[in-house]
């Protein structure tokens, strides 16, 4: 066991899969000698060689197209898209190609590709470096979209993602990279790709969140606890598919729910969770479903970023509103 940051936990997980399966390949912009602009792949080229961990030309569609051709010839690619905003350049590879290939080959050929990409706000990056673009991708049949909210899950989920035989969009939160540490077991362990996790048990209200907003929700739960309000916090972990059973079970107990996301409100993950609850569990509710999300503007530039991002205060306020309904 060692105390590792979120980013080092991912590096550790990548080390495990590279060591275990000689068909795994890591590639992308700056991932080789430089170890990635955030150092997520630091040391891996030295350890596994330039054949396994290598830099590519600067073109995102090329990187993901390359992944598809490599998968077609028996490899298990782990490409990195340097920032999630750059996935706009590779939408066809994700939505038009790799996610449809299992169907196209009538189930006979697999695309075991894990696309890693950092996202998420609050670190005052340049434009297009922080966007929460999951809302674009969760509606893509054949593509799993996952995002760990802590270092332990980050390592276990990256290993599961690489071992999965379908394409996985693995979203890594920029703000969490170095702000959290967990005790991380050495070697291999896995965390399932498709289950949510109750990260704090409670009885009065359910807060459903993912990624950095899990921490904000936990802070909100702390604040509510001071008034003897018991909030249950669920970390979705998988954004597609969504583990609705865990949510329904919680709502059956608390009868109140707030759905939290850092992304803009329009459509997407929070809207889907809200709709699932409305469709399948509404009789267990005794108040409307609350939602906390970013406003429907473009992702802000650095100066207004912190005002724009949903935080613990917003979650606490919405929870109180629902509790007092």
């Amino acid at each position, binding site marked *: 066991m060692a105390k590792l940051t979120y980013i080092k936990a991912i590096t550790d997980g990548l080390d495990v899969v590279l060591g275990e399966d000689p068909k795994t390949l890591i590639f992308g912009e700056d991932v080789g000698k430089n170890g990635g602009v955030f150092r997520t792949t630091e040391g891996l080229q030295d350890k596994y060689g330039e054949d396994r961990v290598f830099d590519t030309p600067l073109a995102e*569609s090329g990187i993901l*197209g390359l992944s598809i*051709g490599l998968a*077609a010839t*028996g490899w298990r690619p782990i490409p990195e898209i340097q920032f999630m905003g750059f996935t706009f350049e590779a939408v*066809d*590879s994700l939505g038009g190609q790799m996610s449809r290939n*299992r169907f196209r080959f009538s189930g006979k050929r697999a695309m075991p590709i894990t696309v890693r990409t950092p996202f998420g706000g609050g670190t005052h990056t340049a434009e297009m470096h922080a966007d929460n673009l999951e809302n674009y991708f969760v509606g893509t049949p054949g593509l799993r979209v996952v995002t760990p909210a802590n270092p332990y899950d980050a390592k276990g989920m990256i290993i599961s993602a690489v071992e999965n035989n379908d394409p996985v969009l693995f979203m890594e939160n920029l703000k969490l990279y170095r702000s959290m540490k967990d005790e991380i077991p050495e070697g291999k362990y896995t965390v399932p790709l*498709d289950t949510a996790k109750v990260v704090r048990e409670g009885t009065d209200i359910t807060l459903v969140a993912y990624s950095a907003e899990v921490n904000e929700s936990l802070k909100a739960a702390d604040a509510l606890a001071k008034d003897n309000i018991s909030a249950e916090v669920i970390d979705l972990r998988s954004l597609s598919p969504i583990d609705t059973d865990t949510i329904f079970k919680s709502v059956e107990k608390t009868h109140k729910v707030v759905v939290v996301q850092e992304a803009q409100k329009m459509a997407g993950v929070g809207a889907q969770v809200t709709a699932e609850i409305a469709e399948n569990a509404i009789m267990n509710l005794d108040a409307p479903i609350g939602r906390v999300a970013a406003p429907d503007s473009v992702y802000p530039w650095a100066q207004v970023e912190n005002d724009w991002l949903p935080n613990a205060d917003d979650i606490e306020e919405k929870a109180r509103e629902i509790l007092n309904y």
Partner: protein
Amino acid sequence: MAKKTGQVIDFASIKATMSDPYKKTFQIVDKDAKIVNQELFDTFSDDQLVDFMKKMVWERTLHEQTMNFSRQGRLGFYAPTFGEEASEMGSVSAFKDQDFLFPAYRDLPQLIQHGASVTQGFLWSKGNAVGDDYGEQRNWFPQIIIGAQYVEAAGAALGIKKNGEKDAVSFVYTGDGGTSQGDFYEGVNFASSFQAPAVFMVQNNGWAISVPRYKQTAAETLAQKAVASGVPSIQVDGMDVLAVYIATQEAREFAAAGNGPVLVETLTYRYGAHSSAGDDPSRYRTKEEEKPWFDADPLIRMRKILGDKGLWSQDEEDKLVEEYKDSFKASMKEAENTPTQSVVDMLKTTFEEPTPQIKADIARFEAKESK
């Protein structure tokens, strides 16, 4: 004295001459069936010459039969290949089994020559994904997003290199329109960066639906698009099956030997419509434009060459056409007797392990389909 703008660097002459190396169109037999490169022509045996002709007759018959099937409503989307027989059969004849093929939608004939069955081609057109079950064959599905196959082929070429395969390449086709896609450039450049064994085929048939070749780019050839990535290329008479074969074979050898990718542009012509789905070329081009291309027909020149050698007769060709027609009709029957795909089949092949939501959909559609 101040420098006068426009007098130091002669962009005008650079522009005027930059395409020159790519305009020497490679040819063995010209449109009048005159052998313009006797030395290369003599490298072909009689059997080989007859084989090329048979393949082109096969492709033309396949084209005619699919158009009949389309009119009868027995096929779905299908891209006519009329006019492109030399380009397609000449190039695919240079393939080896271990080569990967990334076709676009107009490349079903090559897919079939590389191992897929005619029935599979028909099933693909009819909208049944069973048609794309190629087993162990190194075939890929006919790409619709023309350009995507270029980056994927670069990946397969890199995979082949990493596998340590010594005599295999990744073949990929697109058309003149496809060379305008960003993925075209990314694919060529990625393969070049990795010096991976890819052979990029550009079948320049003059038209991207209704948009003529000259509107795609001001570059005088499409072959020259490769040079900026450090990739050698050649323009070939795409109506000359022997020239296409030799150029493709040479490209393959060069790439397979570890020298990096190559690009081959074949100059051909789409005699017919873009697809079987209602495109009407008379809306955007004239009979006068079409005529010289019909005169340059690849079958006419091979017919004459073989006829002069006593290797071919119209009777034999007619017999062959009937044989091929019968086999295509049998393949269509087989395709029609193949069970229709169901929504449940689709749901089951979305993920390896169906998600809970998909399991619910499967149950719903199983109930519906069993009614």
